[in-house]
Protein backbone atom coordinates (compact mmCIF):
# COMPACT_ATOMS: atom_id res chain seq x y z
CA UNK A 1 0.00 0.00 0.00
CA UNK A 2 1.27 3.45 -0.89
CA UNK A 3 -0.51 6.68 -0.03
CA UNK A 4 0.69 9.74 -1.87
CA UNK A 5 -0.45 13.32 -1.37
CA UNK A 6 0.49 15.80 -4.06
CA UNK A 7 0.22 19.57 -3.77
CA UNK A 8 -2.54 19.22 -1.17
CA UNK A 9 -4.47 22.42 -0.52
CA UNK A 10 -7.28 23.00 1.93
CA UNK A 11 -9.04 26.08 3.24
CA UNK A 12 -11.65 26.98 5.86
CA UNK A 13 -13.56 29.66 4.02
CA UNK A 14 -11.03 32.29 2.94
CA UNK A 15 -8.32 31.02 5.32
CA UNK A 16 -5.89 28.67 3.59
CA UNK A 17 -4.66 25.99 6.01
CA UNK A 18 -2.74 23.66 3.71
CA UNK A 19 -0.79 25.40 0.96
CA UNK A 20 0.62 22.61 -1.18
CA UNK A 21 1.60 19.61 0.94
CA UNK A 22 3.45 16.62 -0.54
CA UNK A 23 3.69 13.35 1.42
CA UNK A 24 4.29 9.68 0.77
CA UNK A 25 3.86 6.77 3.16
CA UNK A 26 4.03 3.02 2.53
CA UNK A 27 3.28 -0.28 4.28
CA UNK A 28 5.20 -1.00 7.47
CA UNK A 29 6.02 2.67 7.90
CA UNK A 30 4.99 5.10 10.64
CA UNK A 31 5.07 8.76 9.75
CA UNK A 32 4.73 11.34 12.52
CA UNK A 33 3.29 14.69 11.48
CA UNK A 34 4.68 17.43 13.71
CA UNK A 35 4.25 21.17 13.95
CA UNK A 36 3.00 23.95 16.18
CA UNK A 37 -0.62 24.68 17.01
CA UNK A 38 -2.52 25.65 13.88
CA UNK A 39 0.17 24.31 11.55
CA UNK A 40 -2.45 22.13 9.81
CA UNK A 41 -1.73 18.67 11.24
CA UNK A 42 -5.36 17.72 11.93
CA UNK A 43 -6.49 19.27 8.66
CA UNK A 44 -3.87 17.26 6.78
CA UNK A 45 -5.07 13.99 8.31
CA UNK A 46 -8.68 14.79 7.46
CA UNK A 47 -7.69 15.62 3.88
CA UNK A 48 -5.80 12.35 3.52
CA UNK A 49 -9.07 10.57 4.33
CA UNK A 50 -11.37 12.88 2.33
CA UNK A 51 -13.16 13.89 5.52
CA UNK A 52 -12.46 17.45 4.43
CA UNK A 53 -12.81 18.52 0.81
CA UNK A 54 -9.65 19.56 -0.99
CA UNK A 55 -9.19 23.02 -2.46
CA UNK A 56 -6.51 21.62 -4.73
CA UNK A 57 -4.09 18.77 -5.29
CA UNK A 58 -4.85 15.07 -4.97
CA UNK A 59 -4.46 12.04 -2.73
CA UNK A 60 -3.68 8.71 -4.37
CA UNK A 61 -4.05 5.33 -2.71
CA UNK A 62 -2.12 2.69 -4.67
CA UNK A 63 -2.38 5.01 -7.66
CA UNK A 64 -6.16 5.51 -7.34
CA UNK A 65 -7.47 9.03 -6.88
CA UNK A 66 -9.34 9.17 -3.55
CA UNK A 67 -11.74 11.76 -4.98
CA UNK A 68 -13.10 9.08 -7.32
CA UNK A 69 -13.60 6.44 -4.64
CA UNK A 70 -16.90 6.05 -2.74
CA UNK A 71 -16.53 6.91 0.93
CA UNK A 72 -17.21 3.38 2.19
CA UNK A 73 -14.47 2.01 -0.07
CA UNK A 74 -12.00 4.50 1.35
CA UNK A 75 -13.07 3.35 4.83
CA UNK A 76 -12.15 -0.23 3.92
CA UNK A 77 -8.55 0.87 3.29
CA UNK A 78 -8.04 3.82 5.64
CA UNK A 79 -9.04 3.99 9.31
CA UNK A 80 -9.22 7.35 11.04
CA UNK A 81 -8.95 7.98 14.80
CA UNK A 82 -10.25 11.45 15.60
CA UNK A 83 -8.54 13.63 18.16
CA UNK A 84 -11.57 13.81 20.43
CA UNK A 85 -13.56 10.82 21.67
CA UNK A 86 -17.12 12.02 22.03
CA UNK A 87 -19.07 10.62 25.01
CA UNK A 88 -21.09 7.73 23.75
CA UNK A 89 -23.37 5.18 25.40
CA UNK A 90 -22.54 2.25 23.13
CA UNK A 91 -20.90 -0.77 24.73
CA UNK A 92 -17.24 -1.34 23.92
CA UNK A 93 -18.25 -4.36 21.82
CA UNK A 94 -20.75 -2.35 19.75
CA UNK A 95 -18.29 0.52 19.44
CA UNK A 96 -15.61 -1.78 18.01
CA UNK A 97 -18.26 -3.44 15.82
CA UNK A 98 -18.79 0.00 14.26
CA UNK A 99 -15.39 -0.51 12.66
CA UNK A 100 -17.02 -3.22 10.52
CA UNK A 101 -19.52 -0.71 9.12
CA UNK A 102 -17.69 -0.29 5.79
CA UNK A 103 -17.87 -4.09 5.30
CA UNK A 104 -21.48 -4.64 6.40
CA UNK A 105 -24.40 -4.48 3.97
CA UNK A 106 -27.35 -5.08 6.32
CA UNK A 107 -26.39 -6.96 9.47
CA UNK A 108 -23.14 -8.08 11.07
CA UNK A 109 -22.05 -11.60 10.15
CA UNK A 110 -20.38 -14.22 12.31
CA UNK A 111 -17.08 -13.17 10.74
CA UNK A 112 -17.65 -9.54 11.74
CA UNK A 113 -18.17 -10.67 15.33
CA UNK A 114 -15.02 -12.80 15.17
CA UNK A 115 -12.98 -9.85 13.90
CA UNK A 116 -14.26 -7.70 16.75
CA UNK A 117 -13.42 -10.41 19.23
CA UNK A 118 -9.87 -10.75 17.84
CA UNK A 119 -9.35 -6.99 18.03
CA UNK A 120 -10.57 -6.88 21.62
CA UNK A 121 -8.31 -9.79 22.51
CA UNK A 122 -5.21 -8.40 20.81
CA UNK A 123 -5.56 -5.11 22.70
CA UNK A 124 -6.46 -6.74 26.03
CA UNK A 125 -9.96 -5.27 26.10
CA UNK A 126 -12.04 -8.42 26.56
CA UNK A 127 -12.83 -7.61 30.19
CA UNK A 128 -14.29 -4.26 29.09
CA UNK A 129 -16.39 -5.65 26.22
CA UNK A 130 -19.76 -4.94 27.87
CA UNK A 131 -18.88 -1.70 29.59
CA UNK A 132 -20.31 1.54 28.18
CA UNK A 133 -17.93 3.86 26.33
CA UNK A 134 -18.74 6.83 28.55
CA UNK A 135 -17.61 4.82 31.58
CA UNK A 136 -14.05 4.25 30.33
CA UNK A 137 -10.86 6.09 31.28
CA UNK A 138 -9.01 8.11 28.63
CA UNK A 139 -6.44 5.35 28.09
CA UNK A 140 -9.10 2.66 27.76
CA UNK A 141 -11.14 4.77 25.35
CA UNK A 142 -8.06 5.37 23.18
CA UNK A 143 -7.42 1.62 23.05
CA UNK A 144 -11.04 0.99 22.05
CA UNK A 145 -10.64 3.57 19.27
CA UNK A 146 -7.57 1.68 18.08
CA UNK A 147 -9.48 -1.63 18.26
CA UNK A 148 -12.30 -0.07 16.20
CA UNK A 149 -9.78 1.11 13.63
CA UNK A 150 -8.22 -2.37 13.45
CA UNK A 151 -11.68 -3.90 13.02
CA UNK A 152 -11.91 -1.94 9.75
CA UNK A 153 -9.02 -4.15 8.54
CA UNK A 154 -7.38 -1.12 6.96
CA UNK A 155 -4.04 -0.78 5.22
CA UNK A 156 -3.46 2.69 6.66
CA UNK A 157 -4.11 4.21 10.09
CA UNK A 158 -4.56 7.96 10.46
CA UNK A 159 -4.30 9.04 14.09
CA UNK A 160 -4.90 12.59 15.19
CA UNK A 161 -3.02 13.43 18.41
CA UNK A 162 -3.97 10.12 20.05
CA UNK A 163 -1.84 10.72 23.14
CA UNK A 164 -2.98 14.26 23.94
CA UNK A 165 -5.19 13.16 26.84
CA UNK A 166 -3.06 10.25 28.08
CA UNK A 167 -0.72 10.09 31.06
CA UNK A 168 2.92 9.06 30.62
CA UNK A 169 2.24 5.39 31.30
CA UNK A 170 -0.62 5.23 28.78
CA UNK A 171 1.40 7.23 26.21
CA UNK A 172 4.23 4.70 26.27
CA UNK A 173 1.87 1.73 26.31
CA UNK A 174 -0.03 3.19 23.35
CA UNK A 175 3.18 3.91 21.38
CA UNK A 176 4.50 0.38 21.90
CA UNK A 177 1.13 -1.05 20.91
CA UNK A 178 0.95 0.95 17.68
CA UNK A 179 4.56 0.18 16.83
CA UNK A 180 4.06 -3.59 17.21
CA UNK A 181 0.68 -3.58 15.41
CA UNK A 182 2.11 -1.74 12.42
CA UNK A 183 5.04 -4.16 12.22
CA UNK A 184 2.97 -7.29 12.83
CA UNK A 185 0.15 -6.46 10.44
CA UNK A 186 2.22 -4.64 7.82
CA UNK A 187 0.14 -1.47 8.14
CA UNK A 188 1.10 2.08 7.38
CA UNK A 189 0.38 4.84 9.90
CA UNK A 190 0.32 8.61 9.86
CA UNK A 191 0.21 10.06 13.37
CA UNK A 192 -0.16 13.72 14.29
CA UNK A 193 1.76 14.30 17.52
CA UNK A 194 2.82 17.14 19.79
CA UNK A 195 5.38 15.19 21.81
CA UNK A 196 8.65 15.25 19.85
CA UNK A 197 10.38 12.62 22.01
CA UNK A 198 7.44 10.25 21.57
CA UNK A 199 7.49 10.91 17.81
CA UNK A 200 11.19 10.05 17.65
CA UNK A 201 10.58 6.88 19.62
CA UNK A 202 7.61 5.72 17.52
CA UNK A 203 8.05 6.91 13.95
CA UNK A 204 10.24 5.95 11.01
CA UNK A 205 9.75 9.25 9.25
CA UNK A 206 8.87 12.76 10.33
CA UNK A 207 7.01 15.47 8.47
CA UNK A 208 7.34 18.90 10.06
CA UNK A 209 4.57 21.32 9.09
CA UNK A 210 4.87 25.06 9.23
CA UNK A 211 2.31 27.55 7.91
CA UNK A 212 0.48 24.90 5.94
CA UNK A 213 3.55 23.56 4.16
CA UNK A 214 5.98 20.71 4.78
CA UNK A 215 9.08 22.33 6.24
CA UNK A 216 11.05 19.09 6.35
CA UNK A 217 10.29 15.46 5.56
CA UNK A 218 13.02 13.10 6.70
CA UNK A 219 13.83 9.80 8.39
CA UNK A 220 13.93 10.06 12.17
CA UNK A 221 17.72 9.86 12.41
CA UNK A 222 18.11 12.81 10.03
CA UNK A 223 16.12 15.28 12.10
CA UNK A 224 18.26 18.20 13.19
CA UNK A 225 17.94 20.81 15.90
CA UNK A 226 17.80 23.67 13.40
CA UNK A 227 14.63 22.31 11.76
CA UNK A 228 12.89 22.07 15.15
CA UNK A 229 14.01 25.58 16.04
CA UNK A 230 12.63 26.94 12.78
CA UNK A 231 9.29 25.14 13.07
CA UNK A 232 8.61 25.69 16.78
CA UNK A 233 10.70 28.78 17.52
CA UNK A 234 12.39 26.88 20.35
CA UNK A 235 16.07 26.05 20.85
CA UNK A 236 16.40 22.32 21.57
CA UNK A 237 19.05 19.70 22.14
CA UNK A 238 18.63 16.30 20.48
CA UNK A 239 20.09 13.58 22.64
CA UNK A 240 19.76 9.92 23.55
CA UNK A 241 19.12 8.50 27.00
CA UNK A 242 19.78 4.78 27.44
CA UNK A 243 19.40 4.38 23.69
CA UNK A 244 16.10 6.30 23.44
CA UNK A 245 16.02 9.57 21.47
CA UNK A 246 14.90 12.63 23.40
CA UNK A 247 14.31 16.29 22.67
CA UNK A 248 15.30 18.69 25.44
CA UNK A 249 13.94 22.24 25.11
CA UNK A 250 16.52 24.89 25.98
CA UNK A 251 14.60 28.10 25.51
CA UNK A 252 12.52 30.28 23.21
CA UNK A 253 14.18 31.73 20.14
CA UNK A 254 14.59 35.47 19.91
CA UNK A 255 11.82 36.96 17.73
CA UNK A 256 14.34 38.50 15.37
CA UNK A 257 16.31 35.27 15.03
Amino acid at each position, binding site marked *: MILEAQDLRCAYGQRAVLKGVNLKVGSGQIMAVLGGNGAGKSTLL*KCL*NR*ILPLAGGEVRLDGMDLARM*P*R*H*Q*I*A*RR*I*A*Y*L*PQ*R*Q*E*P*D*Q*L*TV*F*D*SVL*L*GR*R*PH*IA*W*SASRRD*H*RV*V*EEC*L*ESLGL*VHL*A*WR*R*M*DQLSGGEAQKVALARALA*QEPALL*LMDEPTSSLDLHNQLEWADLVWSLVRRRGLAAVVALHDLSLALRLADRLALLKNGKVHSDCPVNELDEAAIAQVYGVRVRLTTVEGWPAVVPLGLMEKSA
Partner: protein
Amino acid sequence: MGPGPSTPPVLAGFNQQRRWVLVKGLLLLAATVLAAYLAVVLGAFDLTPGAVLGALLGREEGRAALVVWGIRLPRIAASLVMGWSLGLAGLGTMSLLKNPLASPFTLGISQGAAFGAALAIVAFGAGNLGAPALAGQSGGYWSLANAYLLTGCAMLGSLAVTAVIVLLARVRKMSPQAVILAGVALSSLSLSGTILVQYLASEVEVAAVVFWTFGDVARSTWREIGLLAAAALPITVYFLRHRWDLNAMNAGEDLALGLGVEVERVRLTGMLLCGLLVALGTAFHGVVAFLGLLAPHIARRLVGADHGLLIPFSCLLGGLLLLLADTAGRLLVGSGSLPVGVLTSFLGAPLFLYLLLKGGPR
Protein backbone atom coordinates in the same frame (compact mmCIF):
# COMPACT_ATOMS: atom_id res chain seq x y z
CA MET B 1 -29.45 -21.93 21.95
CA GLY B 2 -26.93 -21.39 24.69
CA PRO B 3 -23.24 -20.82 24.19
CA GLY B 4 -21.37 -24.10 24.15
CA PRO B 5 -18.18 -24.69 26.06
CA SER B 6 -16.16 -23.65 22.99
CA THR B 7 -17.91 -20.29 22.58
CA PRO B 8 -15.33 -17.56 23.23
CA PRO B 9 -16.10 -15.28 26.20
CA VAL B 10 -16.83 -12.15 24.19
CA LEU B 11 -19.29 -13.86 21.87
CA ALA B 12 -20.86 -15.69 24.81
CA GLY B 13 -21.46 -12.28 26.37
CA PHE B 14 -22.90 -11.07 23.08
CA ASN B 15 -25.31 -14.02 22.91
CA GLN B 16 -26.34 -13.44 26.51
CA GLN B 17 -27.01 -9.75 25.83
CA ARG B 18 -29.12 -10.54 22.77
CA ARG B 19 -31.15 -13.15 24.67
CA TRP B 20 -31.87 -10.59 27.37
CA VAL B 21 -32.97 -8.04 24.78
CA LEU B 22 -35.20 -10.66 23.15
CA VAL B 23 -36.89 -11.27 26.51
CA LYS B 24 -37.46 -7.53 26.92
CA GLY B 25 -38.85 -7.32 23.38
CA LEU B 26 -41.25 -10.19 23.99
CA LEU B 27 -42.39 -8.61 27.26
CA LEU B 28 -42.99 -5.33 25.44
CA LEU B 29 -45.01 -7.11 22.75
CA ALA B 30 -47.00 -8.96 25.41
CA ALA B 31 -47.69 -5.67 27.20
CA THR B 32 -48.89 -4.16 23.92
CA VAL B 33 -51.20 -7.11 23.24
CA LEU B 34 -52.56 -6.89 26.79
CA ALA B 35 -53.06 -3.12 26.49
CA ALA B 36 -54.85 -3.64 23.16
CA TYR B 37 -57.07 -6.32 24.73
CA LEU B 38 -57.99 -4.01 27.62
CA ALA B 39 -58.61 -1.17 25.17
CA VAL B 40 -61.15 -3.34 23.30
CA VAL B 41 -62.89 -4.65 26.37
CA LEU B 42 -63.01 -1.59 28.60
CA GLY B 43 -64.92 1.59 27.97
CA ALA B 44 -68.26 3.34 28.29
CA PHE B 45 -69.88 0.33 26.62
CA ASP B 46 -68.57 -2.71 28.51
CA LEU B 47 -67.92 -5.79 26.45
CA THR B 48 -67.33 -9.33 27.64
CA PRO B 49 -64.29 -11.18 26.25
CA GLY B 50 -66.71 -13.59 24.53
CA ALA B 51 -68.55 -10.76 22.80
CA VAL B 52 -65.24 -9.23 21.64
CA LEU B 53 -64.06 -12.56 20.29
CA GLY B 54 -67.38 -13.10 18.57
CA ALA B 55 -67.22 -9.67 16.97
CA LEU B 56 -63.63 -10.22 15.87
CA LEU B 57 -64.52 -13.53 14.27
CA GLY B 58 -67.62 -12.08 12.63
CA ARG B 59 -70.01 -14.26 14.66
CA GLU B 60 -71.40 -11.35 16.64
CA GLU B 61 -73.49 -8.62 15.08
CA GLY B 62 -75.26 -5.58 16.43
CA ARG B 63 -73.85 -3.17 18.99
CA ALA B 64 -70.86 -5.27 20.06
CA ALA B 65 -69.62 -5.59 16.48
CA LEU B 66 -70.24 -1.90 15.87
CA VAL B 67 -68.29 -0.88 18.96
CA VAL B 68 -65.40 -3.27 18.25
CA TRP B 69 -65.00 -2.68 14.51
CA GLY B 70 -66.35 0.86 14.23
CA ILE B 71 -64.85 2.52 17.28
CA ARG B 72 -62.34 0.62 19.38
CA LEU B 73 -60.23 -1.25 16.82
CA PRO B 74 -59.63 1.83 14.64
CA ARG B 75 -58.71 3.75 17.79
CA ILE B 76 -56.28 1.05 18.90
CA ALA B 77 -54.74 0.81 15.44
CA ALA B 78 -54.48 4.60 15.23
CA SER B 79 -52.76 4.74 18.64
CA LEU B 80 -50.28 2.07 17.67
CA VAL B 81 -49.45 3.53 14.26
CA MET B 82 -49.32 7.15 15.47
CA GLY B 83 -47.26 6.14 18.52
CA TRP B 84 -44.95 4.08 16.32
CA SER B 85 -44.49 7.08 13.99
CA LEU B 86 -43.79 9.54 16.79
CA GLY B 87 -41.43 7.13 18.54
CA LEU B 88 -39.51 6.76 15.30
CA ALA B 89 -39.54 10.46 14.42
CA GLY B 90 -38.48 11.34 17.98
CA LEU B 91 -35.56 8.94 17.91
CA GLY B 92 -34.69 10.08 14.38
CA THR B 93 -34.51 13.78 15.23
CA MET B 94 -32.62 13.03 18.45
CA SER B 95 -29.98 10.93 16.72
CA LEU B 96 -29.65 12.93 13.51
CA LEU B 97 -29.19 16.20 15.40
CA LYS B 98 -27.28 14.48 18.21
CA ASN B 99 -29.54 16.23 20.67
CA PRO B 100 -31.27 14.35 23.51
CA LEU B 101 -33.84 17.12 23.91
CA ALA B 102 -34.88 17.05 20.26
CA SER B 103 -38.27 15.66 19.24
CA PRO B 104 -40.90 16.71 16.71
CA PHE B 105 -42.77 18.55 19.48
CA THR B 106 -39.84 20.29 21.20
CA LEU B 107 -38.42 21.40 17.83
CA GLY B 108 -41.77 22.83 16.73
CA ILE B 109 -42.13 20.44 13.77
CA SER B 110 -45.53 19.20 15.03
CA GLN B 111 -46.69 22.78 15.56
CA GLY B 112 -45.52 23.68 12.04
CA ALA B 113 -47.62 20.84 10.69
CA ALA B 114 -50.52 22.00 12.84
CA PHE B 115 -50.29 25.51 11.43
CA GLY B 116 -50.23 24.16 7.87
CA ALA B 117 -53.25 21.99 8.56
CA ALA B 118 -55.16 24.82 10.29
CA LEU B 119 -54.50 26.98 7.25
CA ALA B 120 -55.81 24.20 5.02
CA ILE B 121 -58.99 23.86 7.10
CA VAL B 122 -59.77 27.58 7.23
CA ALA B 123 -58.34 29.01 4.03
CA PHE B 124 -59.01 26.07 1.70
CA GLY B 125 -61.92 24.39 3.48
CA ALA B 126 -60.12 21.09 3.89
CA GLY B 127 -61.97 18.70 6.16
CA ASN B 128 -65.29 19.33 7.81
CA LEU B 129 -63.91 18.39 11.16
CA GLY B 130 -66.17 20.25 13.52
CA ALA B 131 -69.41 18.44 12.97
CA PRO B 132 -68.37 14.82 13.55
CA ALA B 133 -66.12 15.83 16.37
CA LEU B 134 -68.85 17.67 18.15
CA ALA B 135 -71.22 14.82 17.47
CA GLY B 136 -68.75 12.47 19.12
CA GLN B 137 -68.44 10.21 16.09
CA SER B 138 -65.35 9.05 14.34
CA GLY B 139 -64.71 8.47 10.71
CA GLY B 140 -66.70 8.88 7.58
CA TYR B 141 -66.17 12.58 6.99
CA TRP B 142 -62.94 12.64 5.06
CA SER B 143 -62.88 13.03 1.35
CA LEU B 144 -59.68 11.96 -0.33
CA ALA B 145 -59.12 15.42 -1.82
CA ASN B 146 -59.48 16.96 1.61
CA ALA B 147 -57.05 14.47 3.09
CA TYR B 148 -54.51 15.32 0.39
CA LEU B 149 -54.96 19.06 0.86
CA LEU B 150 -54.75 18.87 4.64
CA THR B 151 -51.76 16.53 4.52
CA GLY B 152 -50.02 18.61 1.87
CA CYS B 153 -50.34 21.80 3.90
CA ALA B 154 -49.30 20.05 7.12
CA MET B 155 -46.30 18.70 5.25
CA LEU B 156 -45.30 22.14 3.99
CA GLY B 157 -45.55 23.53 7.54
CA SER B 158 -43.57 20.68 9.07
CA LEU B 159 -40.89 20.62 6.37
CA ALA B 160 -40.42 24.40 6.59
CA VAL B 161 -39.72 24.09 10.33
CA THR B 162 -37.51 21.02 9.73
CA ALA B 163 -35.48 22.91 7.14
CA VAL B 164 -34.90 25.85 9.50
CA ILE B 165 -33.88 23.49 12.33
CA VAL B 166 -31.43 21.60 10.09
CA LEU B 167 -29.95 24.87 8.88
CA LEU B 168 -29.55 26.23 12.40
CA ALA B 169 -28.12 23.01 13.80
CA ARG B 170 -25.73 22.26 10.97
CA VAL B 171 -24.83 25.46 9.16
CA ARG B 172 -24.78 27.72 12.22
CA LYS B 173 -23.43 24.87 14.42
CA MET B 174 -25.80 25.79 17.26
CA SER B 175 -25.53 23.95 20.57
CA PRO B 176 -28.25 21.38 21.40
CA GLN B 177 -29.80 23.75 23.94
CA ALA B 178 -29.78 26.62 21.44
CA VAL B 179 -31.50 24.42 18.85
CA ILE B 180 -34.25 23.68 21.38
CA LEU B 181 -34.62 27.41 22.03
CA ALA B 182 -34.91 27.91 18.28
CA GLY B 183 -37.58 25.18 18.38
CA VAL B 184 -39.45 27.17 21.04
CA ALA B 185 -39.29 30.26 18.81
CA LEU B 186 -40.48 28.33 15.75
CA SER B 187 -43.18 26.69 17.82
CA SER B 188 -44.40 30.09 19.00
CA LEU B 189 -44.34 31.36 15.44
CA SER B 190 -46.45 28.43 14.26
CA LEU B 191 -48.80 28.88 17.20
CA SER B 192 -49.18 32.58 16.40
CA GLY B 193 -49.93 31.65 12.82
CA THR B 194 -52.57 29.18 13.98
CA ILE B 195 -54.14 31.81 16.25
CA LEU B 196 -54.18 34.31 13.40
CA VAL B 197 -55.87 31.76 11.17
CA GLN B 198 -58.44 31.13 13.91
CA TYR B 199 -59.01 34.87 14.33
CA LEU B 200 -59.84 35.15 10.67
CA ALA B 201 -62.03 32.03 10.67
CA SER B 202 -65.74 31.52 11.23
CA GLU B 203 -67.00 30.02 14.51
CA VAL B 204 -67.47 26.57 13.06
CA GLU B 205 -63.98 26.64 11.55
CA VAL B 206 -62.49 27.81 14.85
CA ALA B 207 -64.19 24.93 16.64
CA ALA B 208 -62.84 22.55 14.01
CA VAL B 209 -59.29 23.83 14.30
CA VAL B 210 -59.29 23.93 18.11
CA PHE B 211 -60.68 20.40 18.34
CA TRP B 212 -58.26 19.20 15.70
CA THR B 213 -55.15 20.69 17.34
CA PHE B 214 -55.84 18.82 20.60
CA GLY B 215 -54.24 15.63 19.41
CA ASP B 216 -56.66 12.73 19.34
CA VAL B 217 -56.74 9.24 17.92
CA ALA B 218 -60.54 8.94 17.97
CA ARG B 219 -61.12 10.60 14.63
CA SER B 220 -59.26 8.20 12.35
CA THR B 221 -60.74 6.01 9.71
CA TRP B 222 -58.96 2.95 8.41
CA ARG B 223 -57.88 5.00 5.40
CA GLU B 224 -55.83 7.47 7.47
CA ILE B 225 -54.46 4.68 9.61
CA GLY B 226 -53.45 2.84 6.44
CA LEU B 227 -51.87 5.95 4.91
CA LEU B 228 -49.82 6.65 8.02
CA ALA B 229 -48.79 3.00 8.29
CA ALA B 230 -47.84 2.99 4.60
CA ALA B 231 -45.47 5.90 5.29
CA ALA B 232 -44.21 4.66 8.66
CA LEU B 233 -43.20 1.23 7.38
CA PRO B 234 -40.71 2.25 4.64
CA ILE B 235 -39.38 5.06 6.82
CA THR B 236 -38.75 2.53 9.60
CA VAL B 237 -36.90 0.35 7.07
CA TYR B 238 -34.85 3.38 5.99
CA PHE B 239 -33.76 4.07 9.56
CA LEU B 240 -33.04 0.40 10.21
CA ARG B 241 -30.97 0.33 7.02
CA HIS B 242 -28.96 3.26 8.38
CA ARG B 243 -28.74 2.07 12.01
CA TRP B 244 -24.96 1.67 11.72
CA ASP B 245 -24.69 5.19 10.38
CA LEU B 246 -26.73 6.55 13.30
CA ASN B 247 -24.51 4.69 15.77
CA ALA B 248 -21.43 6.13 14.08
CA MET B 249 -22.85 9.66 13.94
CA ASN B 250 -23.60 9.50 17.66
CA ALA B 251 -19.98 8.56 18.30
CA GLY B 252 -18.80 11.68 16.43
CA GLU B 253 -19.19 13.22 13.01
CA ASP B 254 -15.54 12.91 11.96
CA LEU B 255 -15.49 9.31 13.10
CA ALA B 256 -18.65 8.61 11.08
CA LEU B 257 -17.12 10.18 7.97
CA GLY B 258 -14.01 8.09 8.54
CA LEU B 259 -16.20 4.99 8.70
CA GLY B 260 -17.62 5.81 5.28
CA VAL B 261 -20.93 7.37 6.36
CA GLU B 262 -22.30 10.06 4.03
CA VAL B 263 -23.21 12.11 7.10
CA GLU B 264 -24.90 15.12 5.48
CA ARG B 265 -26.94 12.96 3.09
CA VAL B 266 -28.15 10.68 5.90
CA ARG B 267 -28.97 13.66 8.14
CA LEU B 268 -30.89 15.60 5.50
CA THR B 269 -32.82 12.58 4.18
CA GLY B 270 -33.55 11.35 7.70
CA MET B 271 -34.80 14.73 8.90
CA LEU B 272 -37.03 15.15 5.84
CA LEU B 273 -38.49 11.69 6.39
CA CYS B 274 -39.13 12.52 10.06
CA GLY B 275 -40.81 15.76 8.97
CA LEU B 276 -42.95 13.84 6.49
CA LEU B 277 -44.01 11.28 9.09
CA VAL B 278 -44.84 13.95 11.65
CA ALA B 279 -46.79 15.91 9.02
CA LEU B 280 -48.93 12.89 8.15
CA GLY B 281 -49.47 11.96 11.78
CA THR B 282 -50.33 15.52 12.76
CA ALA B 283 -52.65 15.96 9.77
CA PHE B 284 -54.63 12.90 10.81
CA HIS B 285 -54.39 13.04 14.60
CA GLY B 286 -53.43 16.57 15.62
CA VAL B 287 -50.50 17.47 17.87
CA VAL B 288 -49.56 14.69 20.28
CA ALA B 289 -47.06 16.30 22.60
CA PHE B 290 -43.87 14.80 24.03
CA LEU B 291 -44.43 11.20 22.91
CA GLY B 292 -41.47 11.51 20.54
CA LEU B 293 -39.34 12.40 23.53
CA LEU B 294 -40.71 9.84 25.98
CA ALA B 295 -40.49 6.70 23.85
CA PRO B 296 -36.83 6.97 22.72
CA HIS B 297 -35.60 7.82 26.22
CA ILE B 298 -37.38 4.86 27.81
CA ALA B 299 -36.10 2.66 24.95
CA ARG B 300 -32.54 3.86 25.60
CA ARG B 301 -32.91 2.86 29.26
CA LEU B 302 -34.13 -0.57 28.22
CA VAL B 303 -31.70 -1.54 25.46
CA GLY B 304 -28.83 0.95 25.43
CA ALA B 305 -27.59 3.08 22.55
CA ASP B 306 -27.44 0.60 19.64
CA HIS B 307 -29.92 1.83 17.01
CA GLY B 308 -30.47 -1.72 15.78
CA LEU B 309 -32.40 -2.21 19.02
CA LEU B 310 -33.36 1.38 19.77
CA ILE B 311 -35.43 1.78 16.60
CA PRO B 312 -37.83 -1.17 17.12
CA PHE B 313 -38.07 -0.55 20.87
CA SER B 314 -38.72 3.17 20.42
CA CYS B 315 -41.47 2.45 17.86
CA LEU B 316 -43.11 -0.25 19.98
CA LEU B 317 -42.92 1.88 23.12
CA GLY B 318 -44.42 4.84 21.25
CA GLY B 319 -47.36 2.67 20.23
CA LEU B 320 -47.82 1.17 23.68
CA LEU B 321 -47.59 4.52 25.50
CA LEU B 322 -50.10 6.20 23.20
CA LEU B 323 -52.48 3.26 23.49
CA LEU B 324 -52.23 3.32 27.30
CA ALA B 325 -52.67 7.09 27.38
CA ASP B 326 -55.69 6.93 25.10
CA THR B 327 -57.29 4.07 27.03
CA ALA B 328 -56.64 5.85 30.32
CA GLY B 329 -58.14 9.02 28.86
CA ARG B 330 -61.25 7.14 27.78
CA LEU B 331 -61.69 5.47 31.15
CA LEU B 332 -60.99 8.61 33.17
CA VAL B 333 -63.74 10.70 31.65
CA GLY B 334 -66.01 7.94 30.52
CA SER B 335 -67.34 9.63 27.41
CA GLY B 336 -64.20 9.14 25.37
CA SER B 337 -63.72 12.85 24.83
CA LEU B 338 -60.42 13.47 26.67
CA PRO B 339 -57.85 14.01 23.90
CA VAL B 340 -54.78 11.85 24.27
CA GLY B 341 -52.46 14.81 23.63
CA VAL B 342 -53.43 16.21 27.03
CA LEU B 343 -52.28 13.06 28.81
CA THR B 344 -49.01 12.74 26.89
CA SER B 345 -48.27 16.36 27.82
CA PHE B 346 -48.81 15.54 31.50
CA LEU B 347 -46.38 12.65 31.17
CA GLY B 348 -43.88 14.30 28.85
CA ALA B 349 -43.45 17.76 30.33
CA PRO B 350 -41.95 16.48 33.62
CA LEU B 351 -39.58 14.23 31.64
CA PHE B 352 -38.46 17.18 29.54
CA LEU B 353 -37.76 19.22 32.68
CA TYR B 354 -35.87 16.28 34.17
CA LEU B 355 -33.70 15.98 31.06
CA LEU B 356 -32.99 19.70 31.10
CA LEU B 357 -31.96 19.55 34.76
CA LYS B 358 -29.83 16.50 34.14
CA GLY B 359 -28.19 18.14 31.11
CA GLY B 360 -29.29 15.30 28.82
CA PRO B 361 -28.70 11.59 29.22
CA ARG B 362 -25.58 11.34 27.04
